[in-house]
């Protein structure tokens, strides 16, 4: 039995179906991310877990008990709000102690627990400050400490890092993961930032239009997206539409209008439709001046596309190229800058061969 089981939960606002018959299991101690574009229903789902919204149908089981109708202040679940929602009239200490006082904890125990939480989020010395005397990063820590103080079974985090700048966000991601490992609390985070979700979460649930479209580890989500929409939503990808021309021992031959005939390894479950898209991530496309010899045999069939480099974007760690094929289609390739001197660089206007193996391609139904 998972710690949290969401069963056929639906919620509408007027005619808008925010969450549509969604089911999901979250295990104890897991760091789970709900990822999706804005308006996909992820925040509504989180608010139903917190108790701020009541599902129209379905059940939410926490440790086997249905909490769908339980009021927020009676749930063993806490939430960290996107805008932090710190009480402006209370000090850092009183903000953290707020939930403990409501739980009727003894005064002495409250002091101990607050000190423990303050140390946990490294806010020592700031206990007497009011929220408006803190920086954005410090406020974020107070919010985290306050939501963890009651030792909830599940901590819900609504875009917890959205208000921080990039550098701070990256270091805070690490701290959140470390904290989650140390406490063993189940974290459910809502984010629209796929990098954030992939960095922190053990599993990611991708939502679109109120439905869960894929639940997978970050690696599987990226390397084996369940649909064309997910492939495009998570990371960059080149897509070529075509028809399955032949099928032979797990190898498909797809004829495309833009990139000619491509060899693709078939994944499980096999595609059933004839109209498909061949997808290849930019970092799996290699560039070379001449076509590589295909001496590696049939097991690693190589697709070669000839074209002209049109754009070169140097990004520090990687350089991304756009290669225009004779059909007019554009292939994006990104190559790691592993050497300081640009021995591997290609220039705009140069004729190149963009190549990739059949195993690196994905075939997705259109």
């Amino acid at each position: 039995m998972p710690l949290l089981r969401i069963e056929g939960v639906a919620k509408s606002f007027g005619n808008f179906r925010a969450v549509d018959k969604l089911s999901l299991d979250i295990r104890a101690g897991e760091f789970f991310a709900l990822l999706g574009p804005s308006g996909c229903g992820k925040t509504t789902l989180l608010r139903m877990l917190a108790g701020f919204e009541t599902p129209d149908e379905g059940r939410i089981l926490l440790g086997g008990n249905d909490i769908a109708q339980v009021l927020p202040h009676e749930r063993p679940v806490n939430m960290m709000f996107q805008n932090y929602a710190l009480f402006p009239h209370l000090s850092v200490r009183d903000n953290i102690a707020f939930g403990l006082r409501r739980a009727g904890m003894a005064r002495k125990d409250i002091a101990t627990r607050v000190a423990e939480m303050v140390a946990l989020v490294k806010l020592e010395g700031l206990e007497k400050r009011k929220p408006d005397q803190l920086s954005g990063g410090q406020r974020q820590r107070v919010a985290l400490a306050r939501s963890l103080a009651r030792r909830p079974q599940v901590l819900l985090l609504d875009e917890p890092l959205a208000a921080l700048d990039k550098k701070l966000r990256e270091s805070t991601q690490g701290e959140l993961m470390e904290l989650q490992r140390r406490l063993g609390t189940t974290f459910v985070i809502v984010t629209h930032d796929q990098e954030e979700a992939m960095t922190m979460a053990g599993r990611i649930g991708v939502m679109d239009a109120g439905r869960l479209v894929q639940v997978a580890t970050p690696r599987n989500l990226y390397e084996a997206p369940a649909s064309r929409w997910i492939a495009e939503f998570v990371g960059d990808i080149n897509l070529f539409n075509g028809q399955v021309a032949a099928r032979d021992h797990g190898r498909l031959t797809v004829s495309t209008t833009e990139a000619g005939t491509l060899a693709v390894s078939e994944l499980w479950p096999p595609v059933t439709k004839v109209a498909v898209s061949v997808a290849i991530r930019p970092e799996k496309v290699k560039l070379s001046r001449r076509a590589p010899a295909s001496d590696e045999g049939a097991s690693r069939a190589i697709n070669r596309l000839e074209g002209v480099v049109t754009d070169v974007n140097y990004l520090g760690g990687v350089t991304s190229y756009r290669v225009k094929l004779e059909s007019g289609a554009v292939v994006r390739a990104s190559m790691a800058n592993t050497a300081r001197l640009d021995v591997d660089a290609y220039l705009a206007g140069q004729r190149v061969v963009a190549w990739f193996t059949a195993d690196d391609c994905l075939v997705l139904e259109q």
Partner: protein
Amino acid sequence: MSARRIFARPARLAAIAPYLWMVLFFLVPFGFVLKISLSQTAIAQPPYTPVFDFTEGRAALAAAFAQLSFDNFHLLISDNLYILSYLRSLVVAVTSTLILLLIGYPIAYGMARLPQRWQAVAMMLVIVPFWTSFLIRIYAWINILQHDGLLNQMLLALHIVSAPVVWLSTDSAMYLGIVYSYLPFMILPLYATLSKLDASLLEAAGDLGASPRQAFWLVTFPLSLPGVGAGALLCFIPIVGEFVIPDLLAGSSSLMIGQTLWLEFFTNKDWPVASAAAVALLLLLVPPLVLYDRLQRRQLEAGR
């Protein structure tokens, strides 16, 4: 020439305008009142001495100055008519402000929780009475409260009372009039504070185990205190000096300071004593005015 230079001059002139207004319409008249309060009553036109005559040279001016006295202020302390009036004014103002808070807070709270478009409607309903003259509305209350007025007719018709009740010329009628007239001044600042309250704070309180009632007392109420302060002072200060409502609705047994002032000025024709009473009233009102100003400033800073 920089843009700053171009705008500097008119901006500075505009900044002077309120001070100019204060000097012309407050400080200069107050100087007159202060001067009269230090004079003696006389059967003359105007009814006090000394009168400064700027045509008779410096010696005469000095003589006039020498005649100024604090007798009138002494009278204010020695005759308990004045002290009683001040006390009554304070009691009436404090009581009315408390009643206004008790009635105004729930109304403002309810308004702030209405859906957005209904809030505008509710706001209109609060403001609409201002479209009718204040005096006419008080006279309307006289009509309702008098011996054969609407209220008594209704009570008799419903057999709640067997004989007409005396409503008019009582303290209850006065409080009714004051609360009715000042309610918008209490509701509007309260509503302004309450409607700005971040709804996620209440959700956070609930999430942390506070029942809706606890969330109100631990979060909403403390955060609305600036509005409570502003509303209370906005009502308290003018009620202390209120003249029309007690004069029309209250009995004549005890007077508020505004009424005493009026009597001294127009019935007794004792301008110096009336002026002294006015000056004393102003001095009494300075501390709450300063407090109001400070609260307002703090609220502005908090809103930033």
